[in-house]
């Protein structure tokens, strides 16, 4: 045995979107504190395969905290107990021997469960498609340094652009609101001069799409910011609201 943690896992199992799910309990032992949470699930899955059971389906890809694909709701918190990390960067040294850990998928009607811990987050792609861009076809650009940008604005735009689109903000919100995600993109582009021309239409189109997808209204509790693995600031929501209202008042 490689490590010394013995854990009880209560994991949400659901065959597909059509069938009801339920928690199943598993014991894992000999877990190393150096393992990531997903590597611990790998250990469980390889055992389930050996035993002839269906392994737990979960989304994951880069395993270095940047792709935004992993999405586990651990002990009642998106991406688990630590601040500022995704599930793939959560290590087992954050848990105690003998602990019971509950693992669920993101819960939001706009993120339907596909299987076990895997949910469908394509609503986010549609919000971006509605306006999360600057309309510049390839080949149209001027020399990059012809447009100096205030460093503080560029840094703020970068901080908003660091969103990884994982959906933890939605999972954390009691209203399953996508305001933090949507506002991060609106803010990034609103802070930059390149984004000004389409600012009004962008805010309106993205908010309309967000509503259409079935995300709830902002709860103003700040859970999204607290649970965001990339520290996206709730100030972005205030900025989005300003953009949205000024667009609404000035719309023709």
């Amino acid at each position, binding site marked *: 045995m490689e490590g010394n943690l013995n854990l009880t896992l209560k994991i949400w199992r659901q065959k597909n979107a059509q069938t009801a799910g339920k928690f199943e309990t598993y014991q894992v032992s000999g877990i190393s504190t150096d393992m990531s949470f997903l*590597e611990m699930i790998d250990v469980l899955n390889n055992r389930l395969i050996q035993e002839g059971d269906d392994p737990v389906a979960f989304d994951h890809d880069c395993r270095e905290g940047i792709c935004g694909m992993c999405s586990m709701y651990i002990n009642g918190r998106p991406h688990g107990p630590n601040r500022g990390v995704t599930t793939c*960067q959560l290590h087992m040294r954050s848990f105690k021997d003998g602990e019971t850990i509950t693992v669920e998928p993101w819960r939001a009607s706009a993120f339907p469960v*596909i299987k076990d811990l895997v949910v469908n987050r394509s609503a*986010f792609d549609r919000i971006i498609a509605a306006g999360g861009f600057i309309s*510049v076809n390839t080949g149209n650009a001027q020399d990059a340094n012809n447009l100096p940008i205030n460093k503080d604005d*560029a840094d703020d735009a970068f901080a908003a652009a660091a969103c990884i689109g994982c959906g933890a903000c939605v999972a954390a919100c009691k209203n399953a609101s996508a305001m933090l995600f949507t506002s991060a993109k609106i803010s990034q582009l609103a802070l930059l001069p390149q984004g000004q021309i389409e600012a009004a239409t962008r805010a309106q189109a993205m908010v309309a799409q967000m509503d259409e997808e079935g995300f709830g209204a902002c709860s103003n509790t700040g859970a999204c910011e607290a649970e965001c693995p990339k520290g996206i600031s709730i100030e972005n929501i205030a900025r989005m609201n300003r953009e949205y209202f000024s667009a609404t008042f000035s719309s023709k």
Partner: protein
Amino acid sequence: MTKIDSKIPDGNLAEKWTKFKSSVSLVNPSNKRNLEIIVIGSGLAGASAAASLAELGYKVKVFCFQDSPRRAHSIAAQGGINASKNYQNDGDSVYRLFYDTIKGGDYRAREANVHRLAEVSGSIIDQCVAQGVPFAREYGGLLSNRSFGGTQVQRTFYAAGQTGQQLLLGAYSALQRQVGMGNVKLYTRHEMQDVVTIDGKARGIIARDSVSGALERHFGHAVLLCTGGYGNVFYLSTNAMGSNVTAAWKAHKKGAFFANPCYTQIHPTCIPVSGDHQSKLTLMSESLRNDGRIWVPKKENDTRKANEIPEDERDYYLERRYPAFGNLVPRDIASRAAKERCDAGFGVGTSKMAVYLDYAAAIIRYGKGEANKHNMYSPTDEEIQSMGKTVVKEKYGNLFDMYKQITGEDPYEIPMRIYPAVHYTMGGLWVDYNLMTTIPGLYALGEANFSDHGANRLGASALMQGLADGYFVIPYTIGAYLASEIRTPAMSTDSEDFASAEKAVRDRLETLMNIKGSKPVDYFHKRLGKIMWDECGMARSEEGLKTSIKEIQALQKEFWSDVKIPGDINNLNPELEKAGRVADFLELGELMCIDALDRNESCGGHFRMEYQTEDGEALRDDDKYAYVAAWEYEKQSSFKLHKEELKYENIKIAQRSYK
């Protein structure tokens, strides 16, 4: 024998691309509307190509295996993107970027392609800024640059340690804009299973919907593979878990030649392996070598902690061996030097397979700089430390956080432990100047092709190449083929060709499911990875390669008789997806060893123990091996070598020296 024609335009090197662009066939807008293009993969190459081609008016379909195009592994690139803007006034030029790339690639890349890459590099930065990519800036509002390995100018543009993320999100935004306009149809959670050829031309694909398990047929006048590299053949690598060779390998088995498969990049600065459970390795950006100093103890088997080893008992071996480039030597050289020290018994950490990357000196240097800026004439050590750490945090904060998260150690206080890991594959599908493979109508872009990095890629050049191919090369070169396809109407996928391709895919999936053996897919993948890392990794030998070819063949047989895949075909089944990918890696691994065995020289990332200089540097054999090895698939375990001679007309080929 198929003749390989690289289709490099005539004329002076610096004029080839300009001339090509002004003379290549065009497709008029009304015809573009009727031409369908399939793009596999949504990383930098795929997203930029799909967006740009849709902007031109082509009908585009994009496929990715992840749940969103934004997940593609380009997102994880950290350090930066090169461009020969010469904003720093430090002597950069298109020619210098071209020269550095050819030299960095150890004289095994194609001159014309690399020159074109250098020519379009500046436009990439312009395009990205116009899209709203928030690159790092100076206080005057202009773009900031930093240094990278293998160069002596500052030409790397960056966004903290998340450059790949920002560039990909820019391309993804452009792609989603076209999706919203109805010009691109997106197929997420879809994995390409095979390419469909009709009368020798690529005409579509068979894809599997991962959620329903259904097989789908899709027609395209052209198919673009933008599917990244195959580093996961080593099991442990810095690639994402899902990164795979399947699309490229399926194309290879349908007739596309595979070039230089043995050229793999082992990145010098990764977090060392911590145990058997390890599922992937994490890179610490090469940009850290800008300011960090790499060292090991001078004393063998030194068990003291890093901070207890006095300055004069530390061996800064890169600065010692390569004074001109120091810690910024190219990746292949830095990796081999780390391996050499560890093998000789000077490694650090519990495994002794690691070296230190130390920021103590940089923190003091930056701290003193800040003190000067703020007119503090006698700052205390604490003040220097604190100000220095703030600067380092601004430059590399996310990387330091990541290190701490994974290892539980604070790199602001004690040196990081690093060791080389598989990172990038220079080899890939053979393509001509137009990026077309040996199958007409089938293209390969980005890391999936072989063309620009020779035997070793320089840092910050992968992002450049992916976006060059997608934004600025394929929109032009694809016209050369599609102009002759305007009379081909969209084909029905009910044809026999599509039906038989789908059946072959279905049969293979069913065969895999029906093995019902005793071991999970990971078991075979780990074993393959160990063979590849030990014998086809940083150091290779004739004997080792010959043995590993036999071992891999045996492992293939074992896999196909003993793999155990749970679940069923008509449902989300990650193990079945993995099994398909590992089956392809098992065949690719064999070809990599065959290629490494054929190349009786050392060059770049390919280091054969038998061929080294007296001081342990790679020893090339330009008379015999200045060629691209393009392998044709004949049958299981049988590949035929075709050689594309590399002609250096503009650069004098020389022994690489960074001393």
